[in-house]
């Protein structure tokens, strides 16, 4: 089938994009069996595992922003596995694909995408570039933790962007948690110092710290972030217990550099993949997981307060290329009908 047709088809597939999000949402509670059987259905139409099949798979992954290097690596591994196991028909290749992809995500600790909680105060620091959704994610996470029965305090560490403090403040009121803040333009490290002190004296369970968005190539701003991190560690040894990098799912290959630089400066412990409710797949997290071993801990699936969900590797991997494969199947059916 022509590439253009596929692309065109993709553009008109709004409804399906929504559906796939729905699938993902429902899917979060489903088991591995459900996942494999779906992949099974999807790849069943390929009579044999040939170069065409690999090429299609390659393009689907590239269009999900997985990135050239990781895709090539993955394809080599898949080709090797297929050859080694002498897989000829697609009924067997599905397990190889899904295994490989999920393997990347689930390498290491089994519980890795759960938040680590400290016995006393747990400090969570949010970092990321401008406009990825840090503040909104913080509000959603606060809501989530509050529902779990934890007491939460927020720190308005974005003292730079106009309206950022008000934004967190409004969220704080909606969620029903207090916000420690200073005026716009004040030193973010000082806000953190205040917030940590307040969190200790109020004996809250979790302190979530917002920071201003910054591009990772701005050395001065990254130094400032390091200082914020240092101030928190000085007040509470071992803190921040989680450093979450908010990553926009629409971001392309630059996300890898973002993850790398932020990790160097603040020792990022996890990723919050935001805006996954659009048509973007955020496939770059696959490359990030592959190269930097940073786990994805949460995904943002919508604008509602409870739309921040724990990450599920299997469902995500399925969503990554299910849509593309679905489309082709339809198209081929349509062509066959003619």
């Amino acid at each position, binding site marked *: 089938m022509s*590439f253009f047709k596929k692309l065109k088809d993709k553009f008109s597939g709004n409804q399906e994009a929504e559906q796939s999000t729905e699938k993902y949402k429902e899917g979060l509670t489903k088991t591995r069996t459900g996942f494999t059987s779906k992949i099974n259905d999807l790849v069943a139409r390929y009579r044999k595992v040939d170069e065409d099949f690999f090429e299609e798979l390659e393009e689907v992954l*590239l269009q999900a922003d997985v990135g050239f290097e990781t895709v090539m690596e993955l394809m080599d591994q898949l080709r090797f596995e297929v050859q080694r196991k002498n897989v000829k028909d697609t009924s067997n290749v599905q397990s190889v694909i899904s295994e490989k992809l999920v393997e990347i995500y689930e390498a290491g600790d089994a519980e890795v995408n759960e938040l680590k909680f400290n016995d006393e105060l747990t400090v969570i620091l949010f970092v990321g570039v401008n406009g990825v959704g840090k503040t909104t994610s913080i509000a959603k996470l606060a809501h989530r933790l509050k529902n779990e029965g934890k007491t939460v305090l927020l720190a308005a560490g974005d003292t730079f962007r*106009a*309206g950022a403090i008000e934004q967190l403040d409004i969220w704080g009121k909606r969620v029903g948690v207090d916000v420690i803040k200073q005026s716009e333009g004040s030193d973010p490290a000082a806000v953190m110092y205040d917030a940590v002190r307040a969190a200790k004296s109020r004996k809250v369970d979790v302190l979530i710290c917002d920071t201003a968005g910054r591009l990772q190539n701005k050395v001065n701003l990254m130094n400032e972030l390091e200082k914020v991190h240092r101030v928190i560690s000085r007040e509470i040894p071992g803190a921040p217990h989680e450093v979450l990098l908010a990553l926009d799912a629409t971001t*392309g*290959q*630059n996300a890898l550099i973002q993850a790398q630089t932020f990790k160097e400066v603040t020792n990022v412990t996890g990723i919050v993949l935001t805006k996954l409710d*659009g048509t973007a797949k955020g496939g770059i997290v696959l490359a990030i997981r592959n190269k930097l071993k940073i786990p994805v801990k949460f995904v943002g699936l919508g604008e509602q307060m409870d739309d921040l969900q724990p990450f599920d590797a299997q469902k995500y991997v399925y969503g990554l290329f299910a849509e593309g494969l679905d489309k082709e199947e339809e198209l081929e059916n349509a062509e066959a009908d003619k």
Partner: protein
Amino acid sequence: MAFEGLAERLQGTIQRIKGKGKVSEADVKEMMREVRFALIEADVNLKVVKEFVKKVSERAVGQAVMDSLTPGQQVVKIVKDELTNLMGGEQSKIEFSTKQPTVIMMVGLQGAGKTTTSGKLAGMLRKKHNRKPLLVAADVYRPAAVQQLETIGKQLSLPVFSKGTDLSPVEISRQAIEYAKAEHMDTVIIDTAGRLHVDENLMQELKDIRALKEPDEIFLVVDAMTGQDAVNVAQNFNEAIGITGVVLTKLDGDTRGGAALSIRSVTDKPIKFVGMGEKMDALEAFYPERMASRILGMGDMLSLIEKAQTNVDEAKAKELEEKFRTSSFTFDDFLDQMNQVKQMGPLDEILKMLPGANKIKGIENAKVDEGQMGRVEAIIQSMTTQEKTTPEIISSNRRKRIAKGSGTTIQDVNRLLKQFEDMKKMMKQMSGMANSKKGKKKMSMPGLDSLFK
């Protein structure tokens, strides 16, 4: 800097071909593989990549290259031309309405930078086009978006039309246009809420705002870091409301910005501006030709020259020249000059605009220490007026005091004084050379570079 990676990659292959007498079909094929790889890594959409590679291959393998005297140059030219074409041919300007007011709508995904860009655009329209802009806070969904625009308006001393979050964005926009008419404000910039391109209700809202008074410009604001999905976003917004142009934001990051190529070739709408920083004046025109040159490592001298022109005060430059000549250059002048350079933007950015700069190993890590500049500033500011004009009088006691006052060490102060002396000597020599018209000698300013390290 944007596209750096792409430039590097292309340079590698182009360099190889440059060295050869002829370009074989295999050479082109090899080069196009690199091009494809580089473009995908630069986030250019797969479809666009394929189109590009096909076009360039066709032209490159053709006889134009084979018969050309310098085949390497020919290939470079073809790649550059095609890149320029892909990004929009020539530069585009803003459309103003003959019927007041001109309406500009800002649309896009969440977090693309619409509100900030609205402010920057308003500031630019006032400064460069002499317009009277009215900013309209039509994002009633995101908490504090209205306050954000109000704060920006205050920073720029520009009026902001806000009605809180109770009215609908359509009603706010309608009232704003009426208000602008009554108050004789000629340009209305509507900052709409960020929305997903697949959200039908919110897309309808944009159509309703659009129906109030046909906007003269509908700018799609897109994050330069956007990946493959940029085509979906651009296509959907374009189909739903018909955009007239694109503003690419956060291009001061280190993304390669392939989204620029994707969006342009999918929507056929020009990229009009690029966001180059968090400051309110960091909005620049988009020049496809220059961007293509930059991609190919030919430097971005034009941008640099323009930057220098808009920021360097000509009268001051003349005055400085006079001081050079008479060697009455003081620490005050030095500070002045430093500030002028600083106004051009972060020094490491300026550095990278120089041709061939991206070929220098480690240039991407070369960070000009702005903190050092700050220290130099502090030292100078800790001097008395007399000390600034006649540094000879600075005794060791004075040095101690200056170091203390500026929070630096005596060594820092000594170094600056020494460098300043060297600079003055050099200036004397230079002006001497210029006077005797024997200006063939290579001019350099020893010490000036080490000041900032």
